[in-house]
């Protein structure tokens, strides 16, 4: 195929020696499309077996796809790295301006290795790469301030992404995130800590290249079809209207909303923190990622008096979405929107993954309630459901690792429970803290078998709510359904299409869009490539010591009934057996 339509340039950066070079790799984009497919190949090549996630050898791979910059909603960047949080495959997706900036700067992927001798930020403007001294902004309390400073210091306004870490990343909290454009994140699995271990404070990328189009007439037509289907689809409209926060009430209604560390799954106070209330009382602005007409990003405006003098206020703009509202809201027994927003603001400022942070705090609160830990461990902080002020103090203590206990919390809930007990209510799957769905077995098995242990790997919560509420599936059928979905999602994430647009990018549309950039693939070919990419990820996991038998599912998952009844342990054991057989074939 003609590779002039592909983003074949890979930029390699060596932070140890302040060097960079570019390699053209059309074959890897031809075979694996881009995004996830290309990133796992580069990770296999670049990450030495058994590599310590915090060593200079651990690579950070950022990849976009052949549709990025050409079609709407192909707006994600895929990051791959070895996760310091799970010690295995790290994969995280982020929107904002990141994907467009990487492609229009002239790259399909960026590989960052090494460790800088002093704090650095990288500025990539088209083919100009600068290693800038970041000593002045290292240790700065707020990630927002870091963003402001770099905005003033660098060109490319409107055409750039500014990826940066907060103090959590600098201090290698294993679930530190990377923030882009203030409100988007490589949230999960600790990319921020890997940045920190490399003394890489930020990465600015800008560019405005043109992109060739193979068949101009059919491209225009196809673009219009995709665009119209995105802006006219009722499924997409919900992301723009209330956003993902609209999930709070329906999940509460069916009894699938984790509350107080999943001791409960519905509460009356859900009404107070619903997506509807957030929109009515707090929604201040909606935003979009570059080249996505939907605008799912919801920002609340929170006006607070300073209190030390009259008529002195500040207004903070704070992001909300379902998952952070679950993790920094309901699972902590927080139902006041202002409490959630203030806690969220602190978590954002420090650069932590909101989901892992919330689940860690929920475990700590229950452990405190049960007397497993006391004020001796918490340095006097009273951890109580709903008490956001103390949670803010706890967040600061985690980031600053103020004592042995908070040091343990900074490594995640699995580690903390291994040191202090309370494993039966430490809500994580293979080391990654649980998402906000207690909808049934498919949600949990989905996260458990998903290659990155994310609810978005295969959306098991959807199978619970659409299929299992109506009819039974055998473990074999369920695993097949989950894997089929996960295989297809490898295609979407290799094209870096936002999963919210999965209804727009049907197999037929994907095939046609790919055809317009030079790929000649059938829908069946695509499914095979998806399956192969998934297996490549599992092969990497196995290489790095993943054993399906090493699982631990906390009792709480089984004890708390789901909307479709109690989750049966035997069902899980059968599912594990089926997956184990499959892994041996991959």
């Amino acid at each position, binding site marked *: 195929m003609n590779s002039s339509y592909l983003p074949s340039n890979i930029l390699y950066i060596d932070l140890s020696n302040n060097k960079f070079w570019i390699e053209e790799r059309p074959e890897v984009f031809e075979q694996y499309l881009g995004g996830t497919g290309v990133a796992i190949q580069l990770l296999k090549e670049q990450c030495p077996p058994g590599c310590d996630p915090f060593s200079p050898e651990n690579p950070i791979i950022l990849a976009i796809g052949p549709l990025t910059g050409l079609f709407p909603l192909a707006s994600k960047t895929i990051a791959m790295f070895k996760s310091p949080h799970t010690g295995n495959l790290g994969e995280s997706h982020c929107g904002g301006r990141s994907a467009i900036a990487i492609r229009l700067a002239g790259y399909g992927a960026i590989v960052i290795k090494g460790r800088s001798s002093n704090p650095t930020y990288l500025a990539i403007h088209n083919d100009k790469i600068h290693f800038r001294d970041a000593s002045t902004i290292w240790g700065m309390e707020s990630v927002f301030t870091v963003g*402001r400073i770099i905005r003033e210091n660098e060109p490319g306004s409107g055409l750039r992404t500014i990826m940066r870490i907060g103090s959590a990343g600098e201090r290698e909290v294993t679930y530190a995130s990377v923030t882009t454009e203030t*409100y988007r994140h490589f949230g999960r699995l600790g990319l921020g800590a890997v940045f920190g271990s490399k003394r890489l404070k930020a990465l600015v990328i800008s560019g405005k290249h043109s992109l060739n189009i193979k068949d101009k007439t059919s491209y*225009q037509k196809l673009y219009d079809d995709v665009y119209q289907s995105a802006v006219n689809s009722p499924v997409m409209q919900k992301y723009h209207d209330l956003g993902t926060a609209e999930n709070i009430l329906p999940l509460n209604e069916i009894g699938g909303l984790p509350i107080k560390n999943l001791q409960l799954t519905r509460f009356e106070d859900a009404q107070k923190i619903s997506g509807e209330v957030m929109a009515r009382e707090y929604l201040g602005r909606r935003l979009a*990622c570059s080249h996505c007409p939907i605008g799912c990003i919801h920002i609340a405006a929170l006006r607070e008096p300073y209190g030390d003098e009259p008529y002195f206020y500040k207004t903070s*703009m704070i992001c909300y979405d379902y998952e952070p509202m679950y993790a920094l809201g309901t699972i902590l027994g927080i139902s006041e929107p202002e409490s959630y927003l203030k806690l969220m603001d602190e978590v954002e400022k420090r650069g932590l993954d909101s989901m892992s942070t919330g689940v860690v705090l929920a475990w700590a609160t229950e452990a405190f309630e049960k007397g497993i830990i006391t004020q001796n461990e918490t340095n006097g902080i009273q951890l109580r459901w709903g008490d956001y002020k103390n949670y803010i103090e706890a967040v600061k203590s985690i980031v600053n690792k103020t004592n042995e206990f908070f040091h343990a919390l900074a490594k995640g809930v699995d580690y903390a429970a291994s040191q202090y007990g309370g494993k039966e209510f430490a809500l994580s799957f293979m080391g990654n803290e649980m998402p906000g769905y207690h909808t049934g077995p498919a949600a949990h098995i989905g996260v458990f078998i998903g290659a990155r242990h994310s609810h978005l790997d295969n959306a098991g919560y959807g199978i619970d709510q659409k299929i299992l509420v109506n009819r039974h599936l055998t473990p074999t059928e369920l695993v097949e359904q989950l894997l089929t979905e996960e295989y297809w999602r490898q295609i979407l994430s290799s094209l870096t299409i936002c999963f919210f647009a999965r209804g727009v990018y049907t197999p037929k549309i994907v095939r046609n869009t790919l055809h317009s950039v030079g790929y000649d693939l059938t829908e069946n070919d695509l499914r095979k490539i998806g399956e192969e990419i998934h297996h490549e990820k599992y092969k990497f996991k196995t290489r790095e010591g993943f054993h399906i038998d090493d699982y631990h599912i906390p009792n709480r998952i089984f004890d708390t009934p789901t909307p479709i009844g109690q989750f049966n342990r035997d069902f899980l054991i059968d599912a594990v057996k089926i997956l184990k057989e499959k892994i041996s074939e991959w």
Partner: protein
Amino acid sequence: MRLAVVDTERCIGCQSCMFACSRRQQEGGLASSCLGVKSIGGMERGFMVIVCRACDNPPCAKICPTNALTPRDGGGVKLDIAKCIGCGRCKDACIIGAVFWNDERDKPMICIHCGYCVKFCPHGVLKLEKTREVKQ
């Protein structure tokens, strides 16, 4: 007809308009885009939407040393690319930054007020108007 910004506060920053402009010119990417959307120092504060205002006596044309840019009937300018030497004075003369620059060709990108971008603004930020509407 000329392109106008109705209300920047409705802008979500998706930049679909910028990509539409490139597509009208049979390109992907943004090298040739003739309008710009950027945040006002942080997305939480909203966006600037920069379009050619179709000035009656356009400074960009006045300063052009080769007459590559000439005033167009109804406001704005026309670019005769054959005459353009890529000196960039037009870009500097436009105080709102609406003369965009194509770094690949080293030439200015000039809005022709065709309105193609308007069709791809999902929230009615842009419109085509016959004469400039002056708000009282």
